[in-house]
């Protein structure tokens, strides 16, 4: 069990050995974002800008324009808070910066909503040339890092604080935008990403004796490939989305758009965080927002049984 931010810290040192253009721009959070290992290994390629994310983003954009592949790491909430700077210096300039937003979702716990990355996806999804990535485990973090250093497009890498178990084996092949089926099933398909992937898998295990066998998709890179997702959706009647993010603007909207474009009736239910969040332990928070295994299992059960009781209403959407 290890957090994706830790896998990132290790993996970054590995890819930097092969890719000399990889540099880090740090905003006084090297220990929390795990770029401290890079700092030790490559002190000459580590640039500390201090608690000045807007400047850090701009400096990284300039370095990217001159051929480097800079990783700017901070809490996702702080980094994407500088959205005007990201829009212009990174997006519009098409600067090959990798924005690394850690502490995604509620998991920062007791520090509360001023530190929680709960609306970062909503912002980053609006920039059409930015790749948004959130790995589900160590294997995927490493594969994603290899992908990230293989090109020079603007990138947002969303990472989690909480330790997670591995859901992929070593021969997993990361394909950008492609829906990654981590649990094949039938009738119901659940899309989720990052720290929610093992939670949803646990919830599906809880439901095993009810006869429900949902398919679980790790939607770890956005924008999703519409064609591949449409093809996948063909086999299902219910589409569910769970995410550790505000209900607006994130994965729910990404999947919802694809479902709306389909010329077919599908039942769509989605859940995320529907207020600003609050301070409490991560366990209490995930329970309160029903984004722990028990909450997710209940929601799957209720959504699918309500749907079968009222099967002719066509598309219905919660939130």
């Amino acid at each position: 069990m290890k957090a994706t931010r830790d896998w990132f810290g290790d993996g970054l040192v590995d890819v930097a050995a092969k890719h000399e253009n990889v540099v880090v721009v740090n905003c006084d959070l090297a220990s929390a974002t795990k770029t401290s290992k890079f700092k030790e290994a490559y002190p000459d390629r580590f640039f500390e800008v201090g608690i000045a994310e807007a400047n850090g983003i701009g400096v990284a954009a300039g370095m990217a324009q001159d051929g480097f592949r800079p990783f700017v790491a901070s809490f996702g909430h702080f980094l994407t808070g500088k959205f005007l700077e990201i829009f212009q210096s990174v997006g519009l300039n098409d600067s090959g910066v990798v924005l690394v937003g850690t502490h995604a979702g509620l998991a920062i716990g007791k520090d509360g909503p001023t530190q929680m990355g709960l609306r970062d996806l909503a912002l980053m999804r609006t920039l059409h040339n930015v790749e948004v990535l959130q790995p589900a485990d160590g294997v995927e973090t490493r594969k994603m890092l290899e992908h990230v250093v293989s090109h020079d497009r603007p990138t947002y890498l969303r990472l989690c604080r909480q330790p997670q178990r591995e859901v992929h084996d070593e021969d997993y092949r990361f394909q950008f935008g492609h829906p990654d089926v981590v649990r094949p099933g039938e009738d119901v398909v659940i899309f989720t990403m990052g720290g929610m992937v093992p939670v949803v898998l646990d919830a599906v295990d809880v439901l095993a004796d009810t006869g429900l066998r949902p398919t679980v998709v790790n939607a770890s890179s956005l924008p999703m490939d519409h064609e591949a997702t449409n093809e996948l959706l063909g086999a299902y009647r219910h589409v569910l989305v769970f995410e550790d993010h505000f209900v607006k603007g994130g994965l729910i909207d990404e999947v919802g758009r694809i479902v709306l474009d389909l010329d077919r009736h599908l039942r769509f239910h989605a859940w995320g965080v529907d207020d600003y969040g609050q301070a409490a332990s991560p366990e209490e928070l995930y329970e309160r927002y029903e984004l722990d295994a028990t909450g997710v299992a209940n929601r799957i059960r209720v959504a699918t049984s309500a749907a079968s009781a009222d099967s002719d209403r066509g598309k219905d959407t919660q939130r």
Partner: protein
Amino acid sequence: MTASTTYLDSPPADTHPNLVDDEFELPYRLAQIGQLANDVRAHLLKMIHLAGSGHVGSSLSCADLISVLKFDQMDASGRDVFVLSKGHAAPAWYAALMVAGELDPEEIGTLRRIDSRLQGHPDRKRLDLVSVSTGALGQGLSVAIGRAQARRMRNDDSSVYCLVGDGELQEGQMWEAITYAGARGLANVVLLVDYNRSQNDGTLEEIVPLHPLPEKFRSFHWHVQEVNGHSQLAIRDAINNARENWMQPSVIIAHTRKGYLGPGEVLLNGSHSGVLTPEVYEDAVGYLERTTV
């Protein structure tokens, strides 16, 4: 081109080499830059006139700064970088590119037109003669610092020039960048402040004054020079001095007039958002023609 050209037998105007200061050559060189700066003013006025909108005063106030950089100080092979952080002065940069022969004057009527390379604010994805896309104020210096840092890592001794407006210095990110460059001693950064003392809603004095600006920069460990931003000689000397300083980033605080056309001639009384009516335009063009040899 001019009588002095024949007399001095100087290099042709379309190559803009960095000249070694020479008591014999300098007066010619300055006269030449002055003429080119007038050409820049004429081009940018025509561009804005044809577009029907654009920041006349802000483009004119930095025309001399841009002309000295482009025609005299920037490396002719294109190694140096110029970041126009005050992106609303884009017409001044496009005009300089046209006068330098790098941009087709045929494009002069395309400013702010659909699908044009000459966007209202500079866009590097549409025009590769723009190094950094700007527009929302306060961001250019950070990007310039990144470019400078990248060059330093490669032992590349080229310079990165960044032009900001004075009102732009009210943006917080500017001071993040100023703090950082000063702390790191990024000497290959040269910042030019177009200190025209006027912004959208009034004068800086009325909105939020910046003085004492030199002291502010000094306390952030910058090398500071103050110049008359319409004296090509003063600008030229200051840029040379800035490059000579290898310990600190340099700022050139250039005192300018919004709408400056020439000595004693200020368009629209220095207004930020004055409209370039056909009459005002014709008068200005007439003035520039009279002062061009």
